[in-house]
């Protein structure tokens, strides 16, 4: 009997005594990933001017890239000839690709979803009708060659009230999952993750999970959130999903990456996160700190000779003042590079702090202090209070 060596193993290294937070190590074809992890987004096979050498030095273990963009340019043909995206972009760490469905529904107004797939008008001059089917999405993702790939899912905006439509999307997403698994060419080197759908309906989420966990997969994604729903609805769905999904496989919450959300959702038991915000915002001069963001374009920083964050040990905080960055921000491309370095290191540091505090048994204290620093008047938003109370973390 021959068994295919699994391209993913997941070891849980420690758990929080109170909440559902946990520390794990995912081992993938391009090395280990310490969880909970934040994955920076390199949409087009590059991350805001950073050399992969720099990302490696910062400690980035996994990057996200977008299937829709890469399938358009450079396209499957060139990706195959290049030997996959890792080689093309000179990144020997891990990669994860989305399915392209979400991008299409959110970027293209004219996308139409049928049982066959997502039909849309191409961006090319001929305005051809193009179909992104589950099979085609996997074909592109196989060409890209990411270590973790996503099934094509039937995305419904969380703000859509039509329950019938959402129920259809739950079942269709499972049917599409089977089609994706069936055509997947590289099961020994690429892991396919199903996406749990059902927007804000708990009963539909339960159905979606019950169906997905019957499939032979190495991890799960929670989709259909972070789309404009209220935070009070959001956390309850995350909480439900992490309760119902198997504990021995990594759980990826798609499109979530603000500092507060990372802390809360780690407490709820999520292992993987991604978000374009920390890198996209750098271009506009926005730098992240533990107590919120600062916009370096503001006049007040013109004479501010401190680093962005005196506790940060990134090369930008070690070598440059806010005043210096203020003078070049949105003017010279290097300003974007310098702030991106800080923002990526910030996200990595936050995740490391979360992991370390879980391992040494101080996660509850960390969460309490983190929230207090942002809300010194203790006027905590309801959703933060409720979600953390649900996992036995009382706020100070």
């Amino acid at each position, binding site marked *: 009997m021959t068994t295919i060596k699994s391209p993913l193993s997941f070891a849980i290294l420690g758990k929080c005594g109170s909440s559902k937070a946990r520390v794990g190590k995912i081992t993938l074809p391009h090395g280990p990933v310490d969880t909970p992890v934040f994955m920076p987004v390199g949409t087009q096979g590059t991350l805001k*001017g950073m050399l992969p050498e720099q990302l490696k030095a910062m400690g980035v273990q996994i990057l996200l890239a977008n299937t829709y963009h890469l399938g358009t340019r*450079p396209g499957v043909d060139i990706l195959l000839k290049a030997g996959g995206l890792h080689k*093309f972009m*000179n990144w020997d760490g891990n990669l994860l690709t989305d399915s392209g469905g979400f991008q299409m529904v959110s970027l293209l107004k004219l996308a139409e979803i049928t049982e066959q797939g997502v039909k849309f008008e191409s961006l090319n001059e001929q305005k051809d009708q193009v179909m992104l089917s589950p099979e085609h999405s996997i074909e592109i993702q196989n060409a890209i060659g990411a270590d973790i790939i996503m099934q094509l899912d039937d995305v419904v905006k969380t703000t859509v009230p039509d329950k019938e439509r959402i129920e259809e999307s739950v079942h269709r997403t499972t049917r599409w999952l089977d089609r994706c698994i069936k055509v997947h060419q590289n099961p020994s080197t690429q892991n396919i993750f199903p996406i749990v759908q059902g927007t804000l309906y708990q009963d539909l989420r339960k159905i979606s999970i019950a169906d997905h966990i019957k499939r032979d997969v190495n991890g799960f994604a929670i989709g259909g959130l972070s789309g404009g729903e209220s935070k009070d609805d959001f956390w309850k769905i995350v909480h439900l999903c992490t309760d119902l999904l198997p504990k021995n496989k990594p759980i990826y919450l798609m499109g979530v990456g603000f500092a507060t959300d990372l802390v809360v959702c780690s407490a709820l038991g999520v292992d993987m996160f991604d978000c374009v915000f920390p890198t996209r915002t750098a271009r506009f001069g926005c730098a992240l700190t533990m107590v919120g963001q600062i916009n370096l374009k503001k006049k007040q920083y013109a*004479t501010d000779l401190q680093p962005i964050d005196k506790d940060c040990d990134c090369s930008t905080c070690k070598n440059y003042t806010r*005043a210096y960055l203020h*003078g070049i921000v949105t003017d010279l*491309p*290097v300003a974007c590079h310098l702030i991106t*370095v800080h923002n990526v290191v910030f996200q990595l540091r936050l995740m490391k702090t979360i992991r370390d505090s879980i391992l040494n048994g101080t996660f509850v204290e960390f969460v309490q202090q983190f929230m207090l620093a942002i809300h010194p008047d203790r006027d905590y938003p309801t959703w933060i209070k409720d979600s953390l109370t649900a996992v036995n973390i009382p706020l100070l």
Partner: protein
Amino acid sequence: MKFNVKTVLQRSPRLGELSQIAGKLDVCLETPLALLHTQAGHIPHITHEVLKLVTQEPHFLQIPVVSMHNYLEAIHLYDGRVADFVGSKDSLTCVTLNDPSNLMKQGHHNKDKVPIFTKRGKVLYDSENYMDMVEKLRPDMYIILSDGDTNMTSSNKRVSKAVENTVSFNQRCIERHKKSEKLKDAFVIAPIAGGYCVKSRKQCLELLSPNEPDVQGYLIDGLHNNGPEVELISFSEVKPIVDYVISKLPPGKLRAIQGCWSPLNIIKLVNSGIDIFDTSYCRILTERSAALTFAIDAGEASESYEINLRHGKFSEDFQPVLKECKCVACQGYSRAYIHHLLTVQELLGSVLIMVHNIHHMLRFFQKIRDSVREDKLNELEDRVAAQIKLLHCHKEQLASSELSRNSTE
């Protein structure tokens, strides 16, 4: 900082060295040398952290005042040198007024003042506020304020006005310099104005000569108005002026020139005896998506003088920009990848091209120094000239094939 000529003084392509640099006594830089052209202290597209991956040699940054003017308030409060302020404390710095990669706006003159155009508009500099700025920046080297607004087409009146202003700035700046405790270690370079008029150049040199003891080097200024056009200047136009000025300069002093000179003209200028240049040419190349690929060493394989990576023919070309290049860009990235980055307008495209261009330019200058040492500069010149000739032939062929295609349509 001291400058010493290492070759026989009378020989024109010459080797020299900059040493005894205050605070950096272990550093010794050999000339002919390219200062690293920067904007606000950064080579365009390259952070200092990335620059360390490109070259381990000591960095000598050229810092235009025009790119620092908006920091006036911050620098006033800052207790440190410009190298620290721009985030590169180990680098050497040379302050100059204008950015050689940008075309200067002509005109807008006021008596005893020079206009510069910052991102927030026109600002006038005179000897006083210029020296205030230099004192705050505390560079290792600086160029005295000058009126460099002349070119091949300037009127006699403009040329003599430029000489008059430059001499007056020189006088006042040197008075300030002599009184300045903060600038006592700074290396002073005096610009020589006079456009393309030998008589005016002579006059400028004579009027500046009394200050010679306080000056360690000279800049041949006023040959152009900066920007991409400098690449196209024919050497025969500037040669008479360059040769004349150099013949009149004290041989022990450093000789500088600024601007986006083509590599072939750089060799010719070295041949005439110029010691210091800058890398602004790399910026104009990178902005047009071009990477330098001319062969520097004998026997080095090269298919062309430069390549434009935006061109569709590179979309499936998985070779590095230049096969034998050891730069970070050529070691890990293909032409196809850079082409992809340019097509989707991602920042890393320009980063990789600039990394390669700077690396190529620094290697080119190393070759120039070696060639002068071995008395083989002519060989290098012939090699580069032959490749440029090929480039021109190729361009003409393209143009004529374009023409014939158009005529058949």
